[in-house]
């Protein structure tokens, strides 16, 4: 067998691929489910924190800033490991899926809060004053005048950050979630052949390549005219 044949037999083995493709596809849907959950809860929580912060209650803001800084400084894998392997020491245990969901949601929440808050502060003061002087209340001003402008401003950084954190779903393989990478690694250890990893990498490309290209488009579409 030539080197090339051996390479093909290792990484593109049709028999192994056929056997483990269903597992990797199952992992693909699980990755999408996990990513969807993280995006929903993470963005919602981040937006909620930014709105809370705009109320300007000092002690509350300190708390928010601390929590945000905490989850921006901690590596996501450390948070996942702490929840999954640490909590049982306190008599609480959670599934790998729940640990990954909660951890990455907290991380996305932190980054989203920071980005949305930067957007809110970037809306000129006059917008607030004008809206309030027309008789809108604080909540109405925030919801109908400030947030729409702020959110539009932060679409590119928010999109990029969300994509980056969503790729962290692969970390869930460390806590035994059979998402794409977990399923692929299981396949490698059963078959003694790296073809399932090739399938896994392809699955990630199918999932994320369009997203990355969309991110490029969003960046151009909402670009700042300098």
């Amino acid at each position: 067998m030539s080197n090339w044949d051996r390479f093909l037999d290792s990484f593109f083995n049709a028999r192994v691929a056929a056997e483990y493709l269903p597992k990797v596809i199952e992992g693909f849907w699980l990755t999408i489910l996990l990513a969807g959950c993280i995006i929903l809860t993470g963005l919602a929580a981040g937006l909620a924190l930014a709105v809370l912060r705009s109320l300007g209650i000092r002690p509350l803001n300190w708390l928010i800033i601390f929590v945000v800084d905490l989850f921006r400084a901690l590596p996501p894998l450390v948070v996942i490991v702490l929840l999954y392997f640490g909590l049982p020491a306190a008599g609480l245990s959670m599934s790998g899926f729940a640990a990954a969901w909660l951890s990455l949601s907290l991380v996305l929440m932190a980054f989203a809060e920071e980005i949305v808050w930067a957007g809110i502060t970037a809306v000129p003061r006059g917008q607030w004053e004008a809206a309030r002087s027309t008789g809108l209340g604080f909540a109405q001003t925030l919801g109908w005048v400030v947030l729409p402008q702020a959110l539009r401003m932060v679409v590119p950084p928010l999109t990029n950050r969300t994509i980056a954190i969503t790729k962290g779903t692969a970390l869930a393989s460390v806590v035994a979630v059979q998402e794409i990478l977990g399923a692929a690694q299981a396949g490698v250890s059963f078959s003694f052949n790296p073809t399932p990893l090739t399938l896994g990498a392809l699955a990630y490309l199918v999932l994320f390549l369009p997203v990355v290209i969309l991110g490029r488009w969003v960046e151009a579409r909402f670009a700042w005219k300098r």
Partner: protein
Amino acid sequence: MTFDDFLQAFFSWEILEQAWPILWAGFLNTLVLSAVVVPLGFIGGVILALLSTLRSRWVRWPLIAWVDLFRSLPPLVLLVFVYAGLPFAGLEVSPLTAVAIGFFLNTGAYYGEILRAGIESVPHGQTEAARSTGLTALQALGHVVLPQAVRNVLPDLISNTLEVVKLTSIASVVALPELLFQARQAQSVTYNATPIMAAAVIYFVLLWPVVRLLSRLENRQMAGRR
């Protein structure tokens, strides 16, 4: 569970004293690892950014494909592929080599995108003016364009570097004894979550100043975009 049990499980002083030498060794390895992979990724990024200044479409499209490919694959997937896959191709790689290859490809793509945006933000007149004073193309790039480019994207560069240092925690998956790996070892020996908690605290203390700095820079940047 009482509050004392909770303290015993997460903040036990005896366990911390026992685990400290192991954690400290891991912390030093994390620093060394960062000192290896950050420059490596940065060099990769500079190469990509310089190539992108060539206008030829034979360089441009393969470059975009390369960058998008490695931005689409989650870093952990890349790392596992290199570490678990290459031996099947007859290349036995050490954990450190695997991490270095994975980070070179992944973070190089991110640094490359940032630096490219930086170079594009410098008006073309700067190059023309530099060339007309007698500088060669290389001198103009090195002495005139790059310094301005780096300054324009400094917050993004710092932010990416922060992410890279956090990302070194995935090296624990390939048994490289950095901070998270050491903490997990200590945790599995002591059946206590204190070592992981301590690792989280170490990461936080190490990276919090960077997060603070970034948050200031980002707010200023967003405010400047009104």
